[in-house]
């Protein structure tokens, strides 16, 4: 068992080591602080943080509905929400494009009515990232809502709390660790988002060129810069996941 586990760990660790081995440490700092890199980093942080916030805002009520109510189409809704986890992100991008491009009825209406253009814009990048990150949040929070002792909610109701008060003062505090975990997980996923973003929002410097897109672009011209940016992404993601581990594993 131990041997097999070691092989598995190696399988995950080797590409990372390869990256470290290929990196040119002498110019790493310069690569990371180039204006292009800083711009991509800034945009990545803005977009992934916005996406994580949207996940909390829209994902929390959805998780509650999935965990607590008997809506008839629940399996279908859950399947729909989890779909981006297994779908190739580029397919998600194509689907978003079909729904929200200027030539689509909805995208056209948004543009004509509110002057909003989602494609090839920062909001579009945020939307693409939210699309792929939301399942991670919903899965985490719905699980926490299911596994928490729901009698605490009964107690609160009997004490006179309205449904909203129960949610705000009892449910939310009790599942707070999982809300944090789900948010971080969604944030990390959004940070690494590539396929849906490039398909739906394009690769425009300063507007939609997040770190992963910058890596992709740099691969063509400057491999060392690509490796430097990749390392940066890796360090951020690993930091988040390691800090998350205990909360993620601990039941609500």
């Amino acid at each position: 068992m131990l041997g097999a586990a070691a092989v598995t760990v190696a399988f995950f660790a080797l590409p990372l080591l390869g990256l470290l081995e290929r990196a040119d440490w002498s110019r790493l700092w310069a690569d990371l602080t180039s204006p292009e890199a800083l711009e991509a980093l800034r945009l990545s942080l803005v977009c992934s943080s916005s996406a994580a916030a949207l996940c909390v805002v829209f994902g929390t009520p959805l998780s509650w509905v999935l965990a607590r109510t008997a809506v008839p189409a629940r399996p279908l809704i859950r399947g729909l929400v989890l779909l981006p986890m297994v779908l190739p992100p580029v397919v998600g991008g194509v689907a978003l494009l079909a729904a929200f491009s200027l030539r689509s009825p909805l995208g056209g209406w948004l543009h004509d009515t509110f002057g909003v253009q989602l494609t090839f814009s920062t909001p579009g990048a945020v939307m693409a990232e939210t699309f792929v990150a939301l399942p991670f949040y919903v899965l985490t929070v719905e699980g926490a809502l299911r596994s928490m002792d729901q009698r605490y909610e009964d107690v609160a109701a009997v004490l006179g709390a309205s449904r909203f008060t129960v949610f705000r003062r009892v449910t939310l505090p009790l599942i707070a660790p999982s809300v944090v975990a789900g948010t971080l997980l969604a944030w990390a996923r959004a940070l690494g988002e590539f396929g849906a973003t490039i398909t739906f929002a394009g690769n425009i410097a300063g507007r939609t060129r997040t770190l992963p897109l910058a890596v992709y672009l740099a691969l063509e011209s400057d491999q060392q810069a690509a490796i430097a940016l990749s390392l940066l992404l890796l360090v951020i993601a690993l930091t988040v996941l390691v800090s998350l581990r205990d909360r993620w594993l601990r039941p609500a």
Partner: protein
Amino acid sequence: MSLQAAMSLRLGELVLDVELDARPGTVTAVLGPNGAGKTTLLRTLAGLHAVDTGAVTLDGVVLDRPPDIFVVPERRRIGVVHQDYLLFPHLSVLDNVAFGPRSRGRSVRESRSLATGHLARLGIAELAHVRPRALSGGQAQRVALVRALATEPRALLLDEPLAALDAGTRVETRRDLRRYLAEFAGPTLLVTHDPVDALTLADRVAVLERGRITQVGTLAEVTGRPRTRYVAELIGTNLVQGTAQGTAIRTDAGSWLTTAESHIGPVLATIAPAAVALHRHEPEGSPRNRWVGTVAHLDLLGDRVRVQLAGPLPLVAEVTPSAVSELALREGDPVWASVKATEITTYPA
């Protein structure tokens, strides 16, 4: 001014069909075995389940009467203390107690000062800033009670309030609980499977078995004339069902008993285990009821031995250990049993 329920509901396997009237200032114990539906009954009264038919009323106000009336739990003004207390783990004791008043529209300051007063009245003011997980079982029980009382409920429901405590704490907590309940003006319903709780805390007892109330009355009334095997076993007596024709009873199992009292029709009879005498050989003399059975089981209970008999009258006899050795009783042995007619209490079924 009371909590009344005449209702039925089905919840999975359980069918609850209950008629109940808990009067203000009195404690009614709902006594019953596990799975009888005791907790479901409390949850239904609190509004956490809806009844299928019938009605629940409190102080004359209908809380639940399908199809058109259902008052949600947060508007019922019923206080509940749960078996494992369910204090909010993320709130201090003070905020747990203040939760009710706060939810009912009082300001944070007002709620906290109310809570402080309630905690002081129960002598646990020093626990105000403690988190629930740091409380002992007895303290948690008190806090749960204060939290329920802080909402100024019109009725109080207690679900096995002492079951989670160890034996030592239970005695002390039961004594305090008795005092607090005496001060509560509304009706109190206390669910328990422990007859000692019913004896020490309750004015009246309702026995709940398989979703139905099988007996209601004072504890003396209930235990004096048990109507079901559950109650008979609870007080450790034998219960026989049969049909009386004067002083003769034909038991449902088909044997005959002679009694001193005369009845006609379906009757119940209790026979104290100590009144069942055991013999190696057929007894002579006065006992009118005698029969041969086999020793099914021997059980030492304090300084007495309870002998479970198998045979036409499967009674429990209680004898001294020396009698057991004199008679050389072993499980599976045949044995003669006798009961005097005057030792049998009969009453209409």
